[in-house]
């Protein structure tokens, strides 16, 4: 007789702590490797699942497939030479690295940035957030089998890449925010073309609303799934949209405004349910907010002025001993750079604190037990993690 109840007759013994006693030698468990190449993972990372039937009893993350040793490489590059490599730390949203690094260097070297450069930086960060959320929307829909959203979102993201290209001169790694300012001002007619992209994006987002968020399947598979207890947020270092989906209205943009965020008016979207659904809808609303912010920035920003201060000669630029931490709100949560200088021409230490570092490992390992194999991908993507920033 067909039954919705899973057959647990073959299941292994349960130990005194209420968890399965995992002994691979019993043959009741199967090791299943999820990754490193898997469409449900944004980037290269693997999760070693121990499954029992289609239920996951244990999951361990394995990272390091993208490790390039950035923090080491930065130590043997001069302050300006670090600038081109920082953006590579995170592929889908590289600009945050550029901003954090530039701001850290500026703080320790005592450099003032022109006002207009701060506006352009904010614009770039929001455009980057837009792109990142577009990938996240496509990813979460794709992980649940709704491929068309991914197609649309990639298209819209590509339109934004065109805007990036004409503003910064590159598509992915913009290398535009350098210590002291930004490389150039807005090109002629940029605002109009940006408005066109934003309108296209809004049109597609309306469709996303209809196809994804008003969708019985999506609701069924996400509501109540992947619940993170808000009590765990502090102990697991959960920040950004993942925390906002659990009722924590924290956003660095709002709480400790950097760049020109204090001159923009916005409300941070918050949800309460803390499940995959809530995380998705928070991102969706944050994406809408980003579109609004880009409009605000373009309307309010000064144009045609200085965008770059004159730096000391970068070939032998030395920064006195000191340390600082610069943070900002990336699309995935608090992103920070910890920079230590020792008075030489090279950073003593750069530590990149990416939100994925806490989200994709300890937290994910905590969430995985008890889920279905099919939900692991959705769970991962809903946490919106980017492996390159974990392992650097």
């Amino acid at each position: 007789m067909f039954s919705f109840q899973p057959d647990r007759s073959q299941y292994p013994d349960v130990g005194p702590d209420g968890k399965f006693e995992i002994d691979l030698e019993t043959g009741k468990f199967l090791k299943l490797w999820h990754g490193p190449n898997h469409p449900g993972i944004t980037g290269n990372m693997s999760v070693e699942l121990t499954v029992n039937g289609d239920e996951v009893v244990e999951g361990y993350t394995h990272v390091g497939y993208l490790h390039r040793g950035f923090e080491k490489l930065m130590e043997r590059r001069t302050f300006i030479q670090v600038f081109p490599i920082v953006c590579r730390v995170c592929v889908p949203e590289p600009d945050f690295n550029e901003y954090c690094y530039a701001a850290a260097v500026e703080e320790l070297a005592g450099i003032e940035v022109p006002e207009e450069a701060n506006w352009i930086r904010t614009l770039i960060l929001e455009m980057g957030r837009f792109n990142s959320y577009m990938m996240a929307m496509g990813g979460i829909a794709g992980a649940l089998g709704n491929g068309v959203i991914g197609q649309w979102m990639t298209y819209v993201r590509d339109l934004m890449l065109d805007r990036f290209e004409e503003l910064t001169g590159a598509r992915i790694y913009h290398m535009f925010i350098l210590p002291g300012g930004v490389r150039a001002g807005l090109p002629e007619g940029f605002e109009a073309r940006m408005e066109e992209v934003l309108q296209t994006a809004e049109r597609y987002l309306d469709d996303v609303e209809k196809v994804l968020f008003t969708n019985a399947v999506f609701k069924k598979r996400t509501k109540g799934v992947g619940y993170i207890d808000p009590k765990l947020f502090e102990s697991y270092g959960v920040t950004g949209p993942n925390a906002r989906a659990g009722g924590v209205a924290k956003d660095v943009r709002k709480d400790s405004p950097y760049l020109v965020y204090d001159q923009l008016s916005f409300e941070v979207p918050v949800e309460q349910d803390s499940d995959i659904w809530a995380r998705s809808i928070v991102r969706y609303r944050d994406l809408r907010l980003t579109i609004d912010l880009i409009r605000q920035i373009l309307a309010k920003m000064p144009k045609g002025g200085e965008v770059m201060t004159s730096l000391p000669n970068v070939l032998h630029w030395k920064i006195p001993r000191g340390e600082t931490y610069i943070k900002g709100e990336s699309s995935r949560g608090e992103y920070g750079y910890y920079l230590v200088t020792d008075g030489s021409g090279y950073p003593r230490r750069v530590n990149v604190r990416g939100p994925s570092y806490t989200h994709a490992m300890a937290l994910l390992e905590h969430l995985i037990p008890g889920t279905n194999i099919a939900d692991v991908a959705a769970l991962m993507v809903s946490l919106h993690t980017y492996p390159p920033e974990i392992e650097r």
Partner: protein
Amino acid sequence: MKDLDKNFKKDTETEFPLREEMRPRKVTTPDGQVIDIDPLADYFCQEAPKVHRKSYSAIVEGFYNWARANSLWILGFGTGCGAIEMRPLMTPRFDAYRYGIQWRPTPRQANLLVISGYLSVKTLKRAIRAYEQMPQPKFVVGLGSCTINGGMYWDSYNTIKKLDEYLPVDLYIAGCMPRPEALLAGFMELKKIIRKGEAEGANKYAENFDWYKANQKSVIKDWDMPDYSW
């Protein structure tokens, strides 16, 4: 390029023990039988690759090459940054599918491995396995500076510098990273090479198998898979 410190002494002594799950052992099945398993021998076919002979007739070979050229199935394995520029190719704006190019989730269905940028040693191990699992004829495209000469990770301790030391590469695309348009141009070029019958990377791999293996093992310290994992 400036001259560099050569005094550094690398530690080459440490030997790596076989990982626990790779060791031969006895296992009890759920129905009570005790069986011996030797993962290295059981999980992999250990036969070395063979050179893929050309067809006897030039016309037939030409037809084969035409067919191969027009169905490039790419393994969806983004090894480095460059993978992010492959995504637009899969979507309507650039739409590589109209050129007979598509992405497959498993190596068994793919004939083109795109090494999208840098390869850390850890990923190299997986890339080698993925490559060897692909059916012949198969091709490798190296994407971006990193595959050519190390790129911006030229001094990194964890990324390889010359892809062609470890895998046979049929084509390189310059850029960091190359745009989707450049990728498409590269794939078109690869098609031309295939149609001319010059994309012989896989045969080169089979012919110089020992050389490639020695190179691979020189950087992968914990080699715990059979030499050929097809």
